[in-house]
């Protein structure tokens, strides 16, 4: 069994006993994974992350990091972790390099780490500029540099590409994937930008209304909810439902079909034509988006 860097079992949390924000959450983040934590705004992502980080006090010993309960693990275990929660946290009256210095002192890190982190995120030239003069993208990069400062084994990032332009998003995503692949750093990333995570995660969990609706590897999600679907627009859709396996009627003119590979798409199309269907369009369903809507929809 793979070692889990973060292990949560039946976590419930709220600021008053009567009103729980997180309800019985269980998560397991395997070492070396890129773990996506997906949820709409207000679903409980940031609260979960804050509890994992010990910022919000959890008294029932339900959370472990690096195999140790957070009550005892922190603050020492933070040496092995880098974080970026909510939005870039920084001191805007200080320069970029002074912001990194504050953390380097606390972590007892040498100056080289600061220089290295600044170069890694492309902020070396702007290091002496006060952060209040930084653009949002520059702030985000520096925040990532702050998270990477101690060469962490675990990076916990909340919306890490928020505020970046499209190129910046690609760059940071590449940086994080490279980091994972080269150093084996485990990434625990939350986002509501589903396409962003879809392309990089190895594992994911979906949270809605304080409850985890799904967690597992990408393959497990595909197995459970069907991976690859196509939407077929045709005339009199209900008449053709009987000819096709794994199909569902969406409306009068729409069928949704689970497809394992492109052969199944071709075969389905042939069957429909052979039975006299007038097919207007075959298109793929946006997988994560669709699943996300399904999983998080309320009763």
């Amino acid at each position, binding site marked *: 069994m793979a070692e889990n860097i973060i292990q949560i079992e039946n976590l419930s949390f709220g*600021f*008053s*006993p009567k009103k729980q924000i997180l309800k019985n959450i269980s998560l397991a983040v395997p070492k070396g994974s890129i773990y996506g934590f997906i949820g709409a705004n207000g679903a409980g992502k940031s609260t979960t992350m*804050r509890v994992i*980080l*010990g*910022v*919000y*006090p959890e008294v029932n010993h339900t959370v472990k990091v690096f195999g140790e309960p957070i009550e005892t693990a922190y*603050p*020492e*275990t*933070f*040496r092995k*972790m880098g*974080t970026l*929660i*909510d*939005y*870039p*946290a*920084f*001191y*805007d*009256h*200080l320069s970029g390099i*002074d912001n990194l*210095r*504050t*953390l380097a*002192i*606390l*972590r*007892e890190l040498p100056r080289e780490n600061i220089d290295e982190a600044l170069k890694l995120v492309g902020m070396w030239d702007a290091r002496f500029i*006060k952060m209040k003069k930084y653009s949002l993208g520059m702030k985000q990069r520096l925040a990532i540099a*702050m998270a990477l400062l101690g060469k962490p084994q675990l990076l916990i990032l909340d919306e890490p590409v928020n505020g970046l332009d499209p190129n910046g998003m690609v760059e940071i995503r590449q940086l994080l994937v490279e980091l994972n692949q080269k150093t084996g750093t485990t990434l625990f990333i939350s986002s509501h930008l589903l396409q962003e995570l879809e392309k990089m995660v190895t594992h994911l969990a979906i949270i809605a209304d304080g409850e985890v609706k799904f967690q597992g590897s990408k393959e497990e999600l595909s197995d459970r909810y069907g991976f690859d679907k196509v939407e077929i627009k045709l005339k009199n859709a209900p008449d053709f439902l009987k000819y096709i396996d794994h199909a569902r009627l969406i409306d009068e003119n729409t069928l949704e079909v689970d497809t394992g590979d492109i052969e199944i798409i071709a075969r389905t199309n042939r069957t429909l034509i052979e039975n006299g269907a007038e097919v207007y369009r075959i298109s793929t369903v946006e997988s994560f988006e669709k699943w996300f809507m399904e999983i998080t929809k309320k009763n």
Partner: protein
Amino acid sequence: MLKNLQLATRTEWIKIKGLGLIYAGAGLALVMPLLKFTGKIFGPRIPGPPETSISLFEDALTSDTGPFAKFFIILFIVVATNRICQIDHKNGGWLLMETQPVKKLSIYLAKYLNIVFLSFLTIAFFFLFTILFTALNQWLFGQTEAKWALSFSWLLQDFLKLFVSSLGISGFMLFVSVVFQGYIWPFIIGILGLVLNLVSYIRKEFYPYSPMHTEQLAFSQDIRSLNTFFGFSEALSIFWTISFLLIGYLWYSRKSFKRAFIFDTKVRIRTLLMLLVLGSAYYFIQKPKQVAPLAATSLSGKLEGPDLPKELYLIEPEFNQKVATIPLVNGEFTWSSSEELPLGFYKLISDDRSINTGLFLGKCDFYNFEVFRGPSGDISFLKTNRKAEIGLQGMPFGFEISYFPQLFQDKPGEYYKEMNKAWERSLEKMKSFRTAENYTVADDFLLFKQQDMAVNFLKAAQGFYRNNSGEEKAYKALVTRLEKELEKPSELTLANPNYLAFKLSSFSQEGARADSATWAGVSALEKGRIKDKLLSYQIATSMEKLPDFQARQQLINRYSDAFSDPRYTEKLEQVLSEQQVTLKGLPFPDITIMDVDNDSKTIKDFKGKYVVIELWSKGADGSRQAFRDAAARYYWYRNVAFASVNVDFDEEGWKSYLKDRKEGQNLQEYWLPAGAAFVKEARIRKLPHYIVVDDKGLIHDFNASAPDRPEFHTLLGSIL
């Protein structure tokens, strides 16, 4: 933990870089010294500190520490704490810090330590600037020789008191600034604390429940007079520090009030215990205390200055007799006695000066004096267990009854109702009185003050009743209530002139025969202690109205057999012999004074005019303007002359003093050689002193009122 705290503190220090807090502290520390300096440049050139000053720097620091402690340092803490916390509130700084390998306690404490260090720097700046500007002032504008000495222990105590008293304010403001995330609320709360301090200053009250009040408590009296190095204000400050660090840390680390204090049963029990411990500690710290008296009555102290006496005398109040002769060795004296010492207002004097003429002393009390003698006055500091009594003595309780007759004219019902209320209110204030050191008044003194106040209320009520009829029942109820207070007059009350005068007046009816009725009343009293006191008081006050020595002597002789204690007759004889020197109608002593042109003159040379004489010294020259104003006012009256006579300068010093101030043109200025000897011989206790000599060169009033008093003008009106 310590290393963790050290790293967090270093980090916090970097975080305040660029906030300008050190400059802000230096700026606030500079305000008072700079204002004074600017005042010297543009304001009138007032001479440097008088010779009675202990130290140039100590004077400057004493006068400036008050405003700095009560306003500037608090303002700095409010601003700095708010600013320091805002940088974390604004951009997720708390979260950033809390996800680093540092404990939350270290983060919270590190912030506190930085605020404390900044306060320390600001206080150090204040001391530095005050000393530098004082030296600069003296160098540029000093007109007399200054005393440069500075006591290190005094400086240390002043600094530490300022610093320690600020710790609680820092703890409180950190708590407020962390809990309230916006900039506005902590600032408003801080300013409200300052406003409350201002209210307390105006109302002369102490608010120990305000955590912002500790600095005000610490500097409500000169630190040389404090009984202990650290006291009530510092204990309160430490209490607030611990309380708010604890509450603030719990609130901060648990992220909400609910989670910190009332989340579940366990947390509630912890909160309850905390409240219990902190509440008890506060109760015991703020509970007013009476200083424990010693096993024996003790007087000690030291005198510094030229021409120190060889011995001091302790004089008891009843018969003015020496209780003790206390030798002075190298300026220091110590005396103690386990004998019964009747409670009263004693005098501690030397041959030439009084150290203290109202020493409230009884068995097992202690007084420690620190007296710095100058040629024209002493500066003295007093440590004693009777601090509260001294403080209470100067408080105006029940003063409002003086304007009640006008306020409630023709409304007797309301008058008596308000009198009752005023009595209750004053009594309550008297009982709850405490000093800045948290000392409360002993029962013996409280009873004395209570009875003294009852006399004043009775006199006021009776006066009102005479002029306003009606509401007899309410009047009688009030009088009965007040008379009950006086049923058993204490020993102190029996020595109180106010009570004795009231008691004597109660023998007489209103009208022309009032005086004879009083004599009849007091004569009819049964021989004994009370009669002795009343009779001696009646004789002493009546003597002042008699024109000459013989008439006064006859009065004493007439009643000498009426005393049960013959010492009262001796006391009256002594009073008479003292009066003889300065008695009205006796020739004014034949002294020779000199004017600025070196012309000699005697008071006889003014014959044909009444002469108003001002005797002043360089340490007691504050009323000279009032005297000059009076001289100008009566300039056109041909039968009165004004003479301002200096008694302590040498001739050149006196002339240069007048020249520096461009004085002497509008007033007849004189200098009395060997003036100090005349002051001593004439038993003048305090300068400036005013004397009126009549047109025949006889004493008209040896103890005239000061020219800024209405009585002075009444006197002048009677002779013009």
